[in-house]
């Protein structure tokens, strides 16, 4: 890190960038060790230190080790990518370090055992972009993640960081900025999909000098972690986006609301704030202009509902995180009653690129009404899980099969749940759906924050609906009757159904409640909470009927409604189920077909999951 001297103008910034780049050869070898939360949990920081130690020991001072943000493929972590070739190593352990240094760094050879093997083709991939998980992605929001050290603002500046801000401050009026963002067709990535340019314009048009900008980093959807990865891996892109937005809106203060469970994001954002302040990229008279702006971090208590903008504002103000009836909208009367503009982390991170590369370039990607890319967090029953950034309009099939590598254990795909807990399940028949805001909603799902949970044939859709509703019952703030009482009642009906106590009329009652909760709730938590039920009812109604009328769970999940049995034809007598059964209900001789004692069986389903030959069947 260069000793901070305030950049007096845009020219200073450009020369600083030249200076940094001059000190770096493009052919220079750099080892990028993922220091995202996922890889850290698997020991990547020790790995990083080990690389440093090893290189020093071997006097390889020319080689740089860089701790970067999340690469998105956390499942395979810790990840190490060797630049400039981008050799991709996965599952790297401390003990692998000497080998990598010896072979790859010194002799330009590959450590074969650390390469990624495509589970579909069984082929090994050498380079990052050969890995199918990455091959189809287009990384715009994640442009720097995995490449730069988020704690070094120099890295960001070297990658053209803050060029967009310099351009805005020197060459563009606020109106022009809004025009650019509007023309790019950027829509909010926090779930609502509201056109960002229009939002800024509304806030800009409000009377009053005191306005606020907020970055929504609450990310309450379980399983989603794209916002965390951006805040951790490229915090300056968020700050730059916010500064540009504030300039356009006429705000001089901002808050980043980060959930308390994201300590690394808070650390990296704080470092970025400090560094950009000392360079004069934040604070008074940024880059010598008469625009002044600063940002503060607020740590949220980690309630899902606090991601809702009015609840978030209440929480920043120190009140209970409960949503407020709108209007007034935050743009009219938000934080401390002043016009406030809230955008999601990913939305902010898109802004600098749009200014940099132009609205045409951005609008060139995506579908008619959804432009640019979207980061999805692909999880569930797929081979490759992780963060996936693809252009809008990519089909679900491409994401699930090409990037995700399809369903493990050769099982059948059943549905993909999109949009977080209050999203919906989309069935196989709609797999060719190009994902964008409208298409997902039409199909009964939603964009939400970009969660994608893949489900295979062994998923019970009634159980899935129940699972998500349980989450929503807990996370409802409890302020309004429809959401507090209605979702709870829906959940208890679902509980009855999976218990085999479903009654004639339950489906209709669920539908009535769902329609009511959707249109009568105060905020969009309640407004979307019935989605899991509605979408499963729409696409998988027969499963509900099977539970209620026949008292059967076709997927074999609802323990009250299944009985496990061993198919004697298929059973090879391997004994795996017998070993794992907690109540010793499986009996049989080795190499002989086993049997399940229904009296002892507690229907935990371990055998059903275990059996490599799918010989345990649910009835």
């Amino acid at each position: 890190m260069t000793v901070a001297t305030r950049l007096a103008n845009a020219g200073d910034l450009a020369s600083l960038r030249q200076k940094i780049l001059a000190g770096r050869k493009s052919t220079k070898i750099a080892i990028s060790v993922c220091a995202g939360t996922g890889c850290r949990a698997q020991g990547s920081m020790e790995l990083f230190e080990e690389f440093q130690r090893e290189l020093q020991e071997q006097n390889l001072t020319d080689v740089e080790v860089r701790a970067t943000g999340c690469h998105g493929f956390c499942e395979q972590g810790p990840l190490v990518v060797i630049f400039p070739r981008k050799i991709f190593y996965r599952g790297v352990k401390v003990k692998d370090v000497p080998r990598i240094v010896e072979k790859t760094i010194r002799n330009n050879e590959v450590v074969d055992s650390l390469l990624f093997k495509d589970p579909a083709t069984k082929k090994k991939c050498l380079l990052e972009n050969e890995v199918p998980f990455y091959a189809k992605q287009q990384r715009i929001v994640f442009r720097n993640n995995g490449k730069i050290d988020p704690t070094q603002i120099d890295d960001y500046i070297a990658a053209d960081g803050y060029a967009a801000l310099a351009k805005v401050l020197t060459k563009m009026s606020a109106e022009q900025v809004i025009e650019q963002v509007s023309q790019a067709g950027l829509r909010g990535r926090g779930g609502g999909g509201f056109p960002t340019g229009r939002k800024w314009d509304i806030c800009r048009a409000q009377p009053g000098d005191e306005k606020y900008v907020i970055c929504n980093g609450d990310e309450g959807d379980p399983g989603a972690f794209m916002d965390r990865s951006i805040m951790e891996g490229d915090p300056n892109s968020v700050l730059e986006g916010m500064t540009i937005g504030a300039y356009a809106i006429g705000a001089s203060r901002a808050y980043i609301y980060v959930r308390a469970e994201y300590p690394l994001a808070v650390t990296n954002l704080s470092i970025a704030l400090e560094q950009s302040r000392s360079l004069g990229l934040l604070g008074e008279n940024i880059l010598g202009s008469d625009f002044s702006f600063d940002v503060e971090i607020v740590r949220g208590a980690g309630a899902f509902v606090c991601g809702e903008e009015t609840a978030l504002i209440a929480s920043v103000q120190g009140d209970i995180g409960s949503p407020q009836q709108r209007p007034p909208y935050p743009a009219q009367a938000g934080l401390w009653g002043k016009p406030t503009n809230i955008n999601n982390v990913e939305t902010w991170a898109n802004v600098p690129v749009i200014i940099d590369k132009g609205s045409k370039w951005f609008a060139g990607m995506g579908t008619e009404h959804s432009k640019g890319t979207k980061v999805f967090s692909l999880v569930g029953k797929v081979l490759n899980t992780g963060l996936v950034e693809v252009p809008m309009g990519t089909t679900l099939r491409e994401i699930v099969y090409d990037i995700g590598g399809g369903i493990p254990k050769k099982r059948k795909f059943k549905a993909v749940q999109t949009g977080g807990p209050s999203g919906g399940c989309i069935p196989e028949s709609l797999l060719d759906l190009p994902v964008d805001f409208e298409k997902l909603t039409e199909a009964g799902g939603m964009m939400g924050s970009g969660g994608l949970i893949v489900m295979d044939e062994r998923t019970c859709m009634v159980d899935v609906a129940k699972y998500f509703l349980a989450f929503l019952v807990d996370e409802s703030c409890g302020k309004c009757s429809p959401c507090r009482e209605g979702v709870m009642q829906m959940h208890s009906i679902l509980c009855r159904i999976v218990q085999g106590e479903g009654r004639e009329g339950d489906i209709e009652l669920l539908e009535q409640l769902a329609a009511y909760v959707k249109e009568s709730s105060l905020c969009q938590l309640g407004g979307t909470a019935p989605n899991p039920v509605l979408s499963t009812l729409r696409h998988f109604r027969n499963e509900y009927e099977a539970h209620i009328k026949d008292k059967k769970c076709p997927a074999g999940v609802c323990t009250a409604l299944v009985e496990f049995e061993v198919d004697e034809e298929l059973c090879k007598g391997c004994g795996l189920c017998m070993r794992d059964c907690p109540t010793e209900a499986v009996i049989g001789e080795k190499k002989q077909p086993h049997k399940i004692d229904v009296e002892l069986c507690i229907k935990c389903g371990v055998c059903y999951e275990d059996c490599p030959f799918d010989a345990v069947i649910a009835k």
Partner: protein
Amino acid sequence: MTEETIKLTIDNQEVEAEAGQTILDAAKTLGIEIPTLCYHPAVPSAGACRICVVEITAGARGALVPACAYPVQEGLGIQSNSERVRQSRKMTLQLLLARSPGAKIIREMAKEYGCEELRLERKDDDCIMCGLCVRVCQQIIGTAAVCFAGRGPDREVSTPYKLLSDVCIGCGACAFVCPTEAIDPAEFCSNPLEKIANEFNCGLDNRTPVHIPFPQAVPNKPVIDRENCIRFQTGGCGACQSVCPAEAIDYDMEDKTVQEDVGAIIVATGYKLFDTEVFEEYGYGRYPDVVTSLEFERMVSASGPTDGQLYRPSDGKEPKTIVFLQCIGSRREKGGVPYCSKICCMYTAKHTILYKHKVHDGQAFVFYMDVRSGGKNYEQFVRRVLTEKMATYLRGRVSKVFPRNGQLVVRGADTLSGGQVEITADMVVLAPAIQPSPGVQDLAQKLRIGYDQHGFLLEAHPKLRPVETNTAGVFLAGACHSPQDIPDCVAQASAAASKALGLVSHKQLTREPTIGVVNELSCNGCFECENVCAYGAIEHKELRDREGDLTATLAHINEGLCQGCGACAVTCRSKSIEVQGYRDDQMFAAINAISR
């Protein structure tokens, strides 16, 4: 911002509203009823219960919005009772009914919407989570003693950590706004505010700091009792101001001293009851079921603390036997007053009738000295009580009232049968003597009118000038003069009023010509005369020179007030006052003429 008017339509009727008003406000001006639960006019809206949803015609399908929290917008079209609205309200009610089957308001609303059948899993929580208590405490009272804890269905209203609250001031605002009577600050308040006794109901119930002093008060308007008002004591609350549609509440108003020049004054200061606690034998103040006749009057009044139901104070039971004791303190030379209080015989007779109306199978006894029923039809009234067996009259005095087995024993003499009687009663009603209101003597001194040894004000002449006083222009009406019943009071008041009118309706005042005059040449302004004038007729007259500088202050006699008694004339050392028609020279001339 300028006040804009906004036009919108509700149920196809056009209405104008002010910016910042809600749909509910606008509907009110049209007389359209929208049900509410979490709304209170004094408390900021939250839009939480969703019972007030109405349909707005914005967007493709329109939307349901809460009328109580949704601001009016130009051109908005609203349906307040469409099928969609009713369906939503029904479902809200079903859910709330399942949550709070014990809440009366929910049961009633559900009945009205035809959805009282329980279809959903039930809980038994009276709180419907409307949040009014939390909002009123936080935003109106400013205490924030109760708050929400927990999320979703586990949300509850509680003090922090469910501990006894020393922040709670026990004002009861939360209980007041709660639609389901689910909250009681007594359960969590560590030092509740003292209840304020309702003076008009003799302290038999309580009142709020802002209150209308009594039914049919003139003017019939509320007053704020500063000693008990949270606003005046802590600067918080302000609820009454925020609800008052006439914006009539002004906390900065001060008490004022008003000075008026008047031509006549009517004194009508009324009376008070003798403090019966001094007669220990009757047990008033010791036994809750011994009450005064005035307390009894409030208890049986339809606008009283029990809405006219008669319960005995100790345990709320209906008194099956009741004993009325007359002449408590009256006609009692020692320790009481020697005069007859005049009204007790008649009201006690009335009380026995009222009692029998309330308790058909009850038994009433009356201890009396004499039944004095002088007055038009009075005797007939008492006869009716006796012949219709409303009460058993016992002539004699009571020596003791004491408790026995949860009842009261009244021991007294029945002088007609010549024996002692003991009556076991549920309740005893005392008829205390009447005394002038406290402070009336001070007033009399200010007005320079006389009073007797009991403090009753004196009339100018008992037969010829019964409503006038010795001070010209001051008249008497009602019990300040003597114990009086209502017809007497009204008659006296009418008389006093016409006397006063007779005085002030003329352009000029006619008076006796024999009044004092001051000789300004010899008066030296010692004002000895002022001290002796019983009628306050001596005024200060200032003499000024051409420049307006004060040269002397001399005595001047107010011709309207002077009664010509001559007290000043004899007091004046410089002989500067003479009574007209009785000047010294005139007197001497008269004497000379006689003696000639």
